[in-house]
């Protein structure tokens, strides 16, 4: 196994990776910005290196600083976590060139999957159903018009280089197309440096369902699906597994097709293939070539440590998992605790956590990087902790999550804990009658 791993991230995911390394007996190196000097990941790591100032581009996105830290500490591998440089093909390539192991797939796959048009072509080639729309980039307005006619309105205009819900335009009827097409083109150029656009059918009531994959040279396995349809501004808030809306046959079809596709692209490590699900059908959305925020929900459901397995695959090139050994049981739910005020349109709520009591108890897991007296700065993502609970069935999982959220005491900042309680008690959540647009329409405050 590796002797020393550098974690090129911060917050709860850095803590998560350090924990996995410790259990493998791997020495850990934390990197941090000047404002993160006292944070949990720095305290838990064996060594730490300050790599720059508070702004991400000077520290957590600063490739040369991170490579210097690798040099300085003699780390053999880099775990990129999620966000920051985790899906930066250039970074993965530089790391490889320096003889350091990048814990994730090859830079070529990262770059293919990062290009949404290219990713769609690959998915289609290897047998995944894709969303109706343009086959590739849409060059002209007249081309856009003919696609609109073919697939029917409403349609969605997206940027090839985009992601995270940014730069998307919904076109409800043809007379809006000209204006929105040009706006989308300008914005795509401005935000992503690439004005290539593509068009897809727009879904009115979609669920977001994704498949967790682990893959090595020897084989590819799935760890079941996750349903992440409780979202605000296209960002997930609650994830659960199994999806309450899939039938047995639909699930089998989805998982088998996903494994088949990933098998054929020589994928290495942990990955997630995301789908839109509506009216009994699923459509490929994108593939995330990294560990995801919501990976613990699958871990508690299957009993498999995804991050430890990532490290194993990175070291040996092969996965130790066999599909027949993976047996998800019961039902698991994760709630993302963000330092935000849900009553004020999710306004950020930085500050000092003056009182911190985290929940525990039977089948309750809390992943986080917070402690009493820690400072939540305004410079990074608002996610501070995740509460993950497992039950024998969905009802018990909901009850256990509510019990755990009730125990969670955080003072000094405002969080999404209160909103989670409202959602989990809501009739629509309990009956699983919602889609990804639900939160923006429902009044909770």
């Amino acid at each position, binding site marked *: 196994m590796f002797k020393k791993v550098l974690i090129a991230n911060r917050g709860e995911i850095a803590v998560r990776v350090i924990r996995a390394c410790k259990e493998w007996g791997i020495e850990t190196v934390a990197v941090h910005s000047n404002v993160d000097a006292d944070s949990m990941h720095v305290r838990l790591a064996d060594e730490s290196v300050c790599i720059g100032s508070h*702004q991400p581009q000077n520290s957590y996105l600063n490739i040369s600083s991170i490579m210097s830290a690798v040099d300085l500490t003699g780390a053999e591998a880099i775990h990129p976590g999620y966000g920051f440089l985790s899906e930066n093909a250039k970074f993965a390539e530089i790391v490889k060139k320096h003889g350091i192991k990048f814990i994730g797939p090859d830079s070529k796959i990262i770059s293919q999957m990062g290009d949404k048009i290219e990713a769609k072509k690959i998915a289609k080639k290897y047998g995944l159903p894709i969303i109706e729309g343009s086959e590739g980039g849409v060059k002209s307005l007249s081309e856009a018009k003919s696609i609109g006619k073919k697939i029917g309105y409403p349609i969605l205009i997206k940027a090839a280089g985009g992601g995270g819900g940014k730069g998307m335009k919904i076109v409800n009827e043809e007379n809006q197309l000209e204006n929105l097409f040009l706006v989308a083109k300008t914005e795509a150029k401005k935000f992503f440096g690439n004005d290539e656009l593509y068009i897809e059918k727009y879904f009115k009531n979609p669920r977001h369902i994704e498949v967790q994959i682990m893959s090595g040279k020897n084989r590819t396995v799935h760890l079941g699906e996750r349903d992440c349809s409780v979202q605000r501004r296209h960002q997930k808030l609650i994830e659960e597994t199994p999806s309450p809306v899939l039938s047995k046959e639909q699930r089998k079809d989805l998982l088998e097709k996903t494994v088949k596709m990933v098998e054929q692209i020589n994928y290495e490590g942990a990955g997630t293939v995301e789908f839109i699900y509506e009216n009994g059908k699923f459509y490929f959305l994108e593939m995330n070539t990294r560990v995801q925020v919501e990976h613990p929900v699958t871990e508690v459901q299957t009993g498999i440590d995804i991050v430890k397995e990532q490290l194993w695959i990175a070291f040996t090139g092969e996965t130790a998992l066999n599909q027949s050994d993976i047996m998800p049981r019961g039902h698991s739910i994760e709630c993302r605790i963000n330092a*935000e005020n849900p009553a004020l349109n999710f306004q950020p709520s*930085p500050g000092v956590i003056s009182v911190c009591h985290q929940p525990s108890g039977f089948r309750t897991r809390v992943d986080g990087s917070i402690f009493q007296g820690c400072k939540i700065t*305004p*410079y990074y*993502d608002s996610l501070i902790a995740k509460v993950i609970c497992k039950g024998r069935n969905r009802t018990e999982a909901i009850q256990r999550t509510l019990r755990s959220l009730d125990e969670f005491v955080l003072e000094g900042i405002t969080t999404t804990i209160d909103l989670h309680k409202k959602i989990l008690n809501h009739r629509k959540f309990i009956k699983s009658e919602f889609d990804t647009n639900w939160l923006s329409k429902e009044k909770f405050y």
Partner: protein
Amino acid sequence: MKIEKKLIKELVDNLKEFNLTELEYQDGQTKIKVSKASKSIEQSKGNIVSPQNKAVLNTTDNSDGIRVKSPIIGTAYLAPEPGAKKFINEGDKVKKGQTIMIVEAMKTMNHVPSTNDGEVKKILVEDGQPVEFGQTLVLLK
């Protein structure tokens, strides 16, 4: 043993003067320890959170111009994106409600509108500088 009231009083005064929470004094066999209750510790903790806020909030007079303050703690940006034209320059005329700056907090871009019509007298922060809640960003005249 005689209790030296005068000495205790002196120590307590020192405690206040230097803003200490605890002070121990020893002279031969005599040892005196004075300390403030935990309440004052809590208060001093509260001050650490935003030491700049107090200073900023105390200077509310607009004698040297109208102060446009940051509505949130975060990173100030003078332009909508790196390399782009700045929202305002010194000497520019601005209208009430016009965006003068962006303060980024937790990956959310918050537009800061001007509170008044006027002319930009001075921009008090640099691009990319961390700002506190209530910190003056721009002076208008």
